[in-house]
């Protein structure tokens, strides 16, 4: 076999692999889109408390999905705490530790959290809610209903304001 023939075969192999990757991605995407997920709702009974919450009255609860391996989402949590500190009616900032198979022994997030720290031991965030982006912030009403969900770097109740 000549070098030219080998090169052509290599190119054809690359094309076949690219096509296969495209088809597999398309099938995975389609399967994911037809799957139904729950609308997120704050139900403390589904999570394990790691740091208790303060009395919340009728305040909103802002839950940040935190991965302990993600400094970016932890920084977002701290930035949110700073941004809301001066408010007259502060939301109850809550950390939900996600994608953590073992119960964390010690969680140091560097910020006081009125809503407490919770461990998503049964993967509710990923499996039941279908969420995958760390740092996503959920705004829940005092009754636990979802008001909005926004990416890290955004103030949840003013989505046009970047932190």
């Amino acid at each position, binding site marked *: 076999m000549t070098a030219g023939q080998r090169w052509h075969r*290599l190119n054809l192999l690359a094309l076949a692999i690219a096509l296969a990757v495209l088809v597999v*991605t398309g099938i995975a*995407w389609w399967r994911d889109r037809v799957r139904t997920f729950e609308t997120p709702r704050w139900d403390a009974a589904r999570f394990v408390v790691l740091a208790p919450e303060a009395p919340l009255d009728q305040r909103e609860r802002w839950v940040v999905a935190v991965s302990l391996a993600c400094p970016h989402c932890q920084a977002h949590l701290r930035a949110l705490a700073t941004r809301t500190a001066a408010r007259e009616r502060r939301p109850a900032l809550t950390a939900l530790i996600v994608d953590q198979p073992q119960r964390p022994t010690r969680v140091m997030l560097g910020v006081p959290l009125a809503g407490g720290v919770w461990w998503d031991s049964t993967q509710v965030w*990923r499996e039941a809610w279908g969420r*995958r*982006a760390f740092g996503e912030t959920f705004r829940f009403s005092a009754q636990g209903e979802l008001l909005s969900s926004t990416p890290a*770097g955004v103030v949840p109740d003013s989505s046009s304001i970047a932190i």
Partner: protein
Amino acid sequence: MRTSTSIPTVPVPHADWRAWAFAVCAATIWFEAIWRSTRDAPASALTPTVAAVAGLATQLVCTALEASLATAAWTSLGRKLRWSALAPALLTASVTEAFAVSVIAERPYLPQLWRVALAGARALPEHVAAGPLAQAFAGFGVLTLLRLGLATCAHVEALRACTGPPASSSGRWRDAALVVLTFYTSSRLAIWWGLDLFRGRSFEP
């Protein structure tokens, strides 16, 4: 039993060295555009030189892969294109994207309307919060159209020198445009699906 046949040799045109010279110029422009945009970025984890080297290497690998896939696609259509005829021309065509990078980076110097028209919606600061489909096509602007046009020219030129069944000039343009558009659409679909899978239902109400 399969017999081995040699691929007919195609005479190397004299213009080959010019194609590679243009490609070297395009690589230099890519380096400069990435270096400047990293230097002007408010917060970057990489130094401008490291970012420019990494960005240029990525661009070269992507162009080489694009040329490989295109060569294979043409082979499956019965035309034997030379990779070395296509790759430098595709790198030269990609220089419009380097300009788009510069247009996005140089915010204070161009009105927003111009930046969006040239580089697409990614020039808007709020595009980061857009959905995966919008993100996948966020780069679509005049410069992308120009790149697609230049890439089509590159394919037509490579087809002229290829072996295989002869095709009319209009047939070459039509086929080349079809291949370029198929590649572009496929890459956008892959980005859309990939981003969507990466995000899941995040940020959805």
